[in-house]
């Protein structure tokens, strides 16, 4: 695509990729953020992402309406979240293991049901074409933006407001930081966490819908590519702040787009290493900011403890 505009194509492709590739990151990270704010961790979002992608694609294909597909994806996420919420809050059950179990189970179900939908073409989500001011086709295609991106951005600001200025938002933060104190205030820790895990999974489900209905816009068994797993790292990177989740997701999306963009202008070296740059960056941030003496700033107090 950069043939006409040459080297300028690189920043353009990166910017477009930041939004296009960052949107699923945004949804899973918001979901994980909500979950972790309540003091629980969900490593099973990879399975939710697959499940969401598959159900969105299947429903869109069956009904012809991609937005029904998005809703189906959220619902599918909610259901997997319910299982996760129930199982991970049983005594002596390891959070991490539940996440991996849900990853295997959700992924399995998605691939099982989704088998017949690999071939047919489902109606895709439309896009806002914000590139009309330019006559350049590369610019135009770069500025095709999925409405779900704006939904995600709105959700990030809404979630930020929710944590600060609503009763339930305060409950979630209290439960995530000091569950015993929350319990003493008569808040049901179990229900708050269950709702957060389910809500978080619904977010991730929508992220899956974006994958299969917009970009890349098809249903394959490897469509999630580890993006659900990495949500956990994204949230650490974003310091458990929904608005930071937005910036972090865009950054991860941009990093993903860098390799292909450079490849298109003939730079082959380091293609795969660019892909790994967000992970290396996250690890570096963790190494730089963690300490054996205290929790990470912003980390919910109950995260990683069994209470």
């Amino acid at each position, binding site marked *: 695509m950069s043939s006409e505009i040459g080297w300028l194509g690189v920043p353009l492709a990166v910017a477009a990729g930041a939004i296009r590739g960052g949107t699923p990151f945004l949804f899973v990270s918001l979901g994980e953020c909500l979950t972790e704010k309540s003091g629980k961790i969900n490593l099973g979002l990879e399975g939710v992402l697959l499940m969401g992608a598959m159900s969105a694609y299947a429903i869109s294909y069956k009904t012809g309406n991609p937005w029904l597909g998005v809703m189906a994806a959220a619902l599918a996420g909610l259901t997997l979240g319910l299982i996760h919420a129930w199982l991970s809050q049983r005594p002596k059950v390891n959070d991490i293991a539940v996440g991996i179990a849900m990853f295997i189970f959700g992924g399995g179900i998605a*691939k099982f049901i989704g088998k017949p939908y690999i071939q047919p073409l489902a109606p895709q989500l439309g896009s806002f074409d914000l590139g009309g001011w330019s006559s350049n086709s590369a610019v135009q295609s770069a500025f095709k933006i999925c409405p779900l991106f704006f939904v995600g951005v709105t959700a990030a600001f809404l979630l930020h407001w929710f944590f600060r200025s609503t009763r339930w938002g305060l409950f979630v933060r209290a439960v995530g930081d000091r569950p015993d104190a929350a319990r003493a205030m008569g808040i049901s820790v179990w229900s708050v966490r269950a709702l957060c895990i389910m809500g978080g999974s619904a977010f991730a489900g929508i992220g899956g819908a974006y994958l299969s209905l917009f970009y890349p816009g098809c249903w394959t068994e490897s469509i999630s590519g580890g993006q659900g797993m990495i949500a956990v790292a994204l949230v650490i990177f974003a310091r458990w702040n929904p608005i930071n989740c937005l910036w972090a997701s865009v950054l991860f999306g941009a990093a993903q787009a860098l390799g292909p963009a450079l490849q298109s202008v003939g730079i082959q070296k380091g293609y795969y290493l660019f892909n790994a740059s967000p992970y290396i960056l996250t690890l570096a941030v963790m190494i730089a900011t963690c300490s054996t003496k205290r929790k990470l700033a912003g980390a919910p107090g109950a995260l990683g403890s069994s209470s």
Partner: protein
Amino acid sequence: MSETQTETSLTSPERPAFQWRSTLESLVLPAGAIAVAMVLFGFFCLLAGANPLAVYASIKKAAFGSWYAFQNTLVRASPLMLCALCTAIPIRLGMVIIGNEGALVIGGLCATVAGLAVQQHSPLLVQSSMALAGMLAGGLWICFAGALKHYRGVNETIATLLLNHIAVAILNHLVNGPLKNPESLNKPSSYPIPEDKMLHPLFGSNIHWGLVFGIVACIAAWILIHKTTFGFQVRTIGGNIRAALIAGIPVGRISLITCFIAGSCAGLAGMVEVAAIQGSANESLNANYGYSGFLVAFLARQNALGCILLSILLGGLITSGGILQRAHHLPDATIAVFQGLVFIVILFSESLYGRWKFFREDSHE
């Protein structure tokens, strides 16, 4: 405290009775859980329009039905055993490692490099340098995560998750770049290890040395954890790090060594994959053995000996994926659904330990 008054005669130290109740509990609960999972999966098959009994019969036949089928099962089981140890050993320290995949990939990659470097020498030298390099690389890989945890407080689960992605990127980078064999077009691979220097199958079967490595490693890990002073220190740290400190146990050193051992098991699995099956490093190394290994470790309740049995069962299950498609028109993902169900029910059963009075030792005196 009333026990000083109600003290009964406790004169000579008597040999305590065998703890059969808790032993029974640790057998009955997992068995029951697997039975429940099988019933649930049966319903799932019914919904999908297949006869559950016929499905189970097919799985049994495909996995254990013949010597040939069983060989395939064992071939699948061997990397699972080694990968499972990568989770099952450090969890005794209280560390949840999911970096099996990354350690396997890095192990396989470094084994390949080492093998290629000495490829003109004798097979034994090639194989042993590959094994050494694989174990060293995998060990250091997980050891790095252990060090981050110990010295910087970085969460080991997330660190190893990130390391998985980084390992896969390094693999892709090398097999598409510096190590790329120009002849491997549709599946980018490294230069191959010479055919005659690879690990050969045992006794004219399909089974290769990986199975021996796996079983020996599991037994050795079990002995290490339960029968040695080193394992004693590991278990003390896992139970309560403060107690370990008060006893002067060198927590850092023990943790790092344990992580190294764990990682070297996964690294060895990577070496076996290259030296016995693939013949070169390529993206097939990244074949989800890592998460399956994690699954095995948890199904075996982190018991290294249990890992042998469960790896064979899971290996059989994976092998039978194809036949479900052919005989029952079920997608091959059916096996993943079954695995997921078993995992979920086993995890649920964890919360039932100590629930029934019948299994408690001290309430029946």
